[in-house]
């Protein structure tokens, strides 16, 4: 795949994954440059390309290497090492990418070792987000593997002085069937780099012929995870390492008024680090670091800030005066036999990855090495380089497979803070954020207000659809249904109350919740079955296929909803993934909602690993239960009011419905990513089921926050 294609749609996509920086750059020797971003060091990439800009020209500024050796290496024993800037966060790409390489290279899966996210060793990469790994990195590595294979075949042909077309590459060997000659890949490379360059297209093995890709290979190194042997970022230990802790302000946008560090300084082994408004400590162990930080008395001035109860009114007020819908739209709406106008809201939520942000930083003169959990190792490398005024090549970021992120670990706050502490200590330092820090000082999925104006004929034909999203984002705002007059309008809000950024599926969750709830209302309004109504207005064959597959497996229409039991459905598409969900909910006399059963159908082209895909799809359903029913960040006066798992409810075993996943394998369509969009259909399907049972339309996510409980 040419580099140009890797950029397609990337700039817009990347922009939505960007996390706004809130702080100027700081220099160790220029205190005045240091500012506090609510709580830690954050580096503003002011004057430097932000992720969005970088990716616009990004692949130009960072052209993909065309050398095979940049991407893979075959040693003298035939062991294969693959280099990629993508990172493993539980989405299983360490396995699925290795499968793709094994397939094209014609080697056994377990000869492959993936080196991922080590900025000194792997080609530059924008980061692991936007479901980009499978559709972009997959083909890139496959191409390199195919090129390596043909190079090995040529080498063998030269040795044997035969026509390469008569040779066969299989199972890590090149064979000459005519002469019964065989040479292993290791014997052919003798551990030398494969120096050829590859440009342009190469024929890749079609999915119909896959033998390793397309199969349910278990998680690579699975054994290390059930034995506790795998080292996550927070598990890294370095010789002589100290432990750090940062003193956080009492609210967002705070400034330091006064601080007394004398008690902490008297504690044995403790060093206090001050740099402008940044206050931290290092100590020989984490326990002492915690005690020392608690002994520091700091006073902060926190400006007045709005609370979550004022949020939606505030967002709406600030988004006023956007572009009005065009005349065609108004005309279509005016001419509709039935019209509907509705508003939906979506709360701020947190990713709450089970492993909070963590880093270990080590200085060697002017070289800095940081192990940290991030979806953007090169992004974090750049943040570090700027923070410490270093050239990028003096900073190395390593990303051990981490305790996930869900879009929440794009930024390098913890890495920068940790490096600052290590610089002061002159020793390696580990910094692990607490759950409360992660809930407060990371960033949030943006809240939003979505409004839809629609028009439909009595016979159920959609004729107008105008959807506006304030603040949460443009992803998935375009309706996949056939409607002549349609408009999608995203209105950005400047300086929103909380620091917000990427979250699995971005705003596709919000926009699908609004659209699919609205579609359900329209179906009822025109007295049509929700499935029939959708199909009547849908010609997209892939979306129809998942909708029908889910409905069929679910037994849609077999049973009518009752006040105690409701059935609902929803579907959608974004980023090359097609999803449909059917949900069954139970509602008791106290209006407690239980999701009993969910059937979700998924299609994203040719399946690379059906087991991994099934796992992702199921996990997405479970995660979606939280945002759909009960997850919500509450805040006031610059503070998060529920920054703990005891106060912020996430889905647990008891919340989990019976789940059936139906995978459609389209071997004729290139594989798309599957980590994100599986999350978008659950909430509207559940909301529609609640409506079917009770006649109550819930237009706010989370849904079980008002009249209903979950």
């Amino acid at each position, binding site marked *: 795949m040419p580099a140009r294609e890797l950029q397609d749609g990337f700039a817009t996509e990347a922009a939505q994954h960007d996390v706004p920086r809130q702080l100027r750059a700081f220099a160790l020797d220029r205190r005045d440059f240091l500012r506090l971003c609510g709580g830690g060091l954050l580096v503003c990439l002011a004057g430097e390309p932000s992720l969005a800009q970088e990716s616009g020209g990004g692949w130009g500024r960072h052209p993909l290497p065309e050398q095979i050796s940049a991407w893979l290496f075959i040693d003298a024993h035939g062991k294969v090492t693959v280099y990629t800037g993508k990172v493993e966060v*539980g989405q299983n790409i360490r396995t699925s990418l290795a499968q793709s390489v094994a397939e094209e290279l014609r080697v056994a899966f377990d000869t492959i070792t993936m080196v991922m996210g080590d900025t000194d060793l792997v080609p530059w990469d924008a980061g692991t987000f936007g479901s980009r790994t499978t559709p972009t990195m997959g083909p890139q590595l496959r191409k390199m593997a195919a090129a390596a294979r043909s190079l090995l075949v040529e080498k063998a042909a030269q040795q044997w002085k035969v026509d390469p077309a008569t040779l066969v590459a299989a199972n890590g060997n090149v064979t000459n069937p005519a002469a019964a000659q065989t040479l292993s890949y290791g014997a052919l490379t003798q551990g030398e780099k494969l120096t050829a360059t590859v440009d342009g297209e190469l024929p890749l093995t079609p999915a119909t012929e896959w033998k390793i890709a397309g199969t349910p290979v278990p998680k690579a190194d699975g054994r290390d995870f059930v*034995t506790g042997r795998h080292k996550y970022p927070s598990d890294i230990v370095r010789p002589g390492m100290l*432990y750090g802790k940062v003193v956080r302000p009492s609210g967002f946008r705070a400034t330091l008024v006064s601080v007394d560090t004398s008690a902490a300084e008297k504690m044995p082994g403790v060093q206090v680090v001050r740099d402008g408004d940044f206050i931290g400590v290092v100590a020989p162990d984490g*326990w002492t670091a915690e005690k020392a930080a608690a002994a520091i008395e700091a006073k902060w001035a926190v400006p007045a800030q709005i609370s979550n109860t004022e949020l939606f009114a505030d967002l709406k007020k600030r988004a006023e005066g956007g572009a009005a819908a065009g005349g065609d739209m108004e005309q279509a709406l005016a001419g509709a036999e039935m019209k509907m106008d509705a508003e939906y809201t979506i709360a701020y939520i947190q990713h709450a*990855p089970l492993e909070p942000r963590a880093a270990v930083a080590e200085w060697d003169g002017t070289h800095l090495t940081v192990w940290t959990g991030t979806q953007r190792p090169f992004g974090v490398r750049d943040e570090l380089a700027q923070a410490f005024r270093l050239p990028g090549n003096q900073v190395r970021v390593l990303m051990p497979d*981490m305790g996930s992120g*869900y879009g929440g670990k794009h930024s390098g706050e913890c890495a920068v803070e940790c490096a600052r502490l290590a610089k002061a200590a002159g020793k390696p330092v580990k910094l692990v954020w607490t759950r409360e820090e992660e809930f407060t000082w990371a960033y949030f999925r943006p809240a939003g207000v979505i409004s839809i104006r629609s028009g439909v004929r009595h016979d159920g034909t959609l004729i107008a659809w105008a959807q506006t999203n304030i603040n949460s984002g443009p992803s998935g705002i375009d309706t996949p249904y056939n409607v002549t007059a349609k408009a999608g309008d995203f209105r950005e809000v400047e300086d929103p109350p909380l620091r917000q950024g990427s979250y699995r599926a971005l705003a596709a969750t919000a926009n699908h919740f609004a659209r699919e709830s609205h579609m359900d209302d329209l179906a009822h309004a025109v007295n049509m079955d929700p499935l029939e109504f959708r199909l009547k207005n849908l010609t997209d064959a892939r979306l129809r296929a998942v909708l029908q597959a889910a409905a069929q497996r679910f037994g849609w229409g077999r049973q009518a909803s009752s006040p105690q039991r409701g059935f609902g459905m929803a579907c959608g598409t974004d980023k090359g993934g097609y999803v449909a969900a059917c949900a069954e909910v139970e509602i008791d006399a106290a209006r407690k909602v239980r999701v009993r059963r969910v059937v979700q159908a998924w299609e994203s082209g040719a399946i690379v690993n059906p087991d991994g895909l099934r796992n992702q799809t199921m996990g997405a359903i479970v995660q979606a239960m939280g945002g759909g029913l009960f997850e919500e960040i509450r805040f006031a006066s610059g503070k998060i009011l529920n920054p703990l798992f005891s106060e912020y409810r996430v889905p647990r075993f008891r919340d989990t419905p019976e789940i059936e996943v139906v995978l459609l394998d389209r071997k004729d369509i290139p594989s798309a990513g599957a980590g994100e969009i599986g999350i978008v259909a659950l909430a509207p399907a559940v909301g529609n089921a609640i409506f079917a049972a009770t006649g109550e339309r819930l237009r706010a996510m989370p849904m079980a926050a008002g009249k209903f409980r979950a």
Partner: protein
Amino acid sequence: MAEFTLKVNGSEHRVNAGSEESLLSVLRDRLQLTGTKYGCGEGQCGACTVLLDGQPALACITLASGAAGQKITTIEGLERNGELCHVQQAFLHEGAFQCAYCTSGMIMAATGLLHAHPHPSEEQILQAMNGNICRCGTYPRILAAIHRAAQAAPTEADDARA
């Protein structure tokens, strides 16, 4: 600071730790047994689950000094002579993880459960496991792994551990 002895995975460790320091902090930072994870520090997520005399306990809200004298088992202590215990095997077999950060705690909680109830009912499983969070949402697979482990014959590693 206090000095005491901890018996972890069959070995004795002389520990010098804060008198109110948690068992989690001692295991991870002082004994370098990082298989036990931090997820919340308030007893809400189960990532730090270990066994104290065979009973599941949350290491983040257990005082290290209080665990002196008890038999502490962590995830690192389940394997014997390179053989996984049946719960570990079941998790591997079912692929009951994504990022697997919750896995240590899940396996320890499940091991404690199966120790007390070798053939647990669905309700007993939910009761025992509901305190453990998996943010990747792999609960159905973890349930499948627990059912599988309950059916499997204990391995040598299990016998040695018990």
